[in-house]
């Protein structure tokens, strides 16, 4: 099993959610976050004050998928979250050792 952590643009959330449903992803955790990547140093002018925006609002998605679904899921997220402009985000893939559904006690891929 793999944990996919994807940082995406907030307004792309609905499209990504829909794309994930198409590839059979059943669970998703979403967090509103702020951060920066290559966008760092982006200057904004507001009412005469010029300041550097260090932290850009983003959305973090976390989902755990079975190994065989990994590629399809990554492709779905990338396609849906893509605009081609700087700041589209990143995905990280981590190996997950175990999953247990608390209600039933099921474990492994069955618990996803």
């Amino acid at each position: 099993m793999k944990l996919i952590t994807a940082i995406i643009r907030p307004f792309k959330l609905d499209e990504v959610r829909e794309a994930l449903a198409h590839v059979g992803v059943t669970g998703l955790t979403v967090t509103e976050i702020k951060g920066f990547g290559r966008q760092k140093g982006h200057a904004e002018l507001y009412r005469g004050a010029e300041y550097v925006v260090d932290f850009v609002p983003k959305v973090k998605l976390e989902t755990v998928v079975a190994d065989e679904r990994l590629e399809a899921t990554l492709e779905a997220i990338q396609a849906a979250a893509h605009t081609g402009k700087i700041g589209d985000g990143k995905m990280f893939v981590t190996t997950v050792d175990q999953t247990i559904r608390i209600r039933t006690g099921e474990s492994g891929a069955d618990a996803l």
Partner: protein
Amino acid sequence: MNDVQFPTAATARPHPRGTAATAALLMLGLSGTALAQEAAPATLNSGDTAWMMISSVLVLMMLVPGLALFYGGMVRAKNVLSVFTQCFGVAGVIGMLWVIYGYSIFSDTTGMEAGVVNLHSFIGGFKQAMLANIDRASLTASIPESVFATFQMTFALITPVIIAGSFAERMKFSAVLLFTALWFTFCYAPLAHMAWSGPGGLLWDWGILEFAGGTVVHINAGVAGLVAALVLGRRRGYPHVAMPPHNLGFALAGAALLWVGWFGFNVGSAVAANENAGMAMLTTQIAACAGVVGWLVVEWLKAGKPSSLGAASGALAGLVAITPACGFVGPSGALYMGLITGAVCFFAIGWLKRKLGYDDSLDAFGLHGIGGIVGSLLTGVFASKSLGGFQDIEIASQVQIQAQSVLFTVLYCAIVTWVLLKLTGLVTRGLRVSADDEQEGLDQSQHNERAYNV
């Protein structure tokens, strides 16, 4: 206009003529004394009275919730309550001072003589201290003097709070109260007296066109704001730390309430429900709309996107500009004044402020100061009959009178404000909160409250 009746006979003592008389006299081209001598005994007009009661409440609505929401939305979440508390606190203190001596030094015309400059050209006496002589029967023009005093009081309450836009997020509450009380005493009330009290008043005798407060309210508060911003210094982190408004919805709702309340401000300054008031209503509305367009067009071209706060600010810029003019200019004049001032205020806030580096937190100077100056000068242009206005004036000489009044106001206000700020700083041991208190936010450090509890 001929049926406007002046108050002298009603209570057998000199009365403030208020802005209605200013408008009426200037429109008729008569001298105040001549008219006063011919005036018939005043009688109460219930239509005028009803409108002035509504106007007073509308202007009060501009302060709380209007200005409180407009400013409160633009500050950071940790300071929103401090803005509201300042609005209420200042209203409380100055409302009391208005009774004790404010109304008197604004309206007492004892010792004033047309064309003669003496102490009373600058400040009224104390004959009406504690609102002496105001009983239920006293009239000002065709309305009860009690209503007139309440109406003028609302102007006195909101003007010092406009300044708060410049020192928001960093001034001690004790200093805010003391400074605004002093400023009301030595800056607002005397200037209102000079412009509105009648023949013998300094600006009145110069022939200023000042219908509802371009000079007395907006330039006065705006310049005081600039001086306060300079004396206090910038907020910590400005201009490099992002300080976006914590709730633009608040700010826009507040601006919208100001727009509505402005009809009490401007149209109420006719002190009657008559044809003069009707035209003031129309020009006020036109200027606000044109102000929105003036600001947004320039912002769209220069900054790439028209912003919501820009739309609201443009409306206010147009309203500020038309304030001195609304009883004197026609619809086309109002349109041009709104457009021009909307655009000019955008540059004042987006360019001038950055160039000069002062931290006018919420743009009290950029909107009210600059907008008031532009509006006051343009009043001298568009009030002319040749440009659709209602005044028999020569544009060049009227603009000169307006400029002279603007210059006087700017200098008087700047000097007095500076002195009062220094004085306040001595009494309150510094005008600013400590660095830690500023970082924590004024809501917590000054009032022990939080606007948002999760």
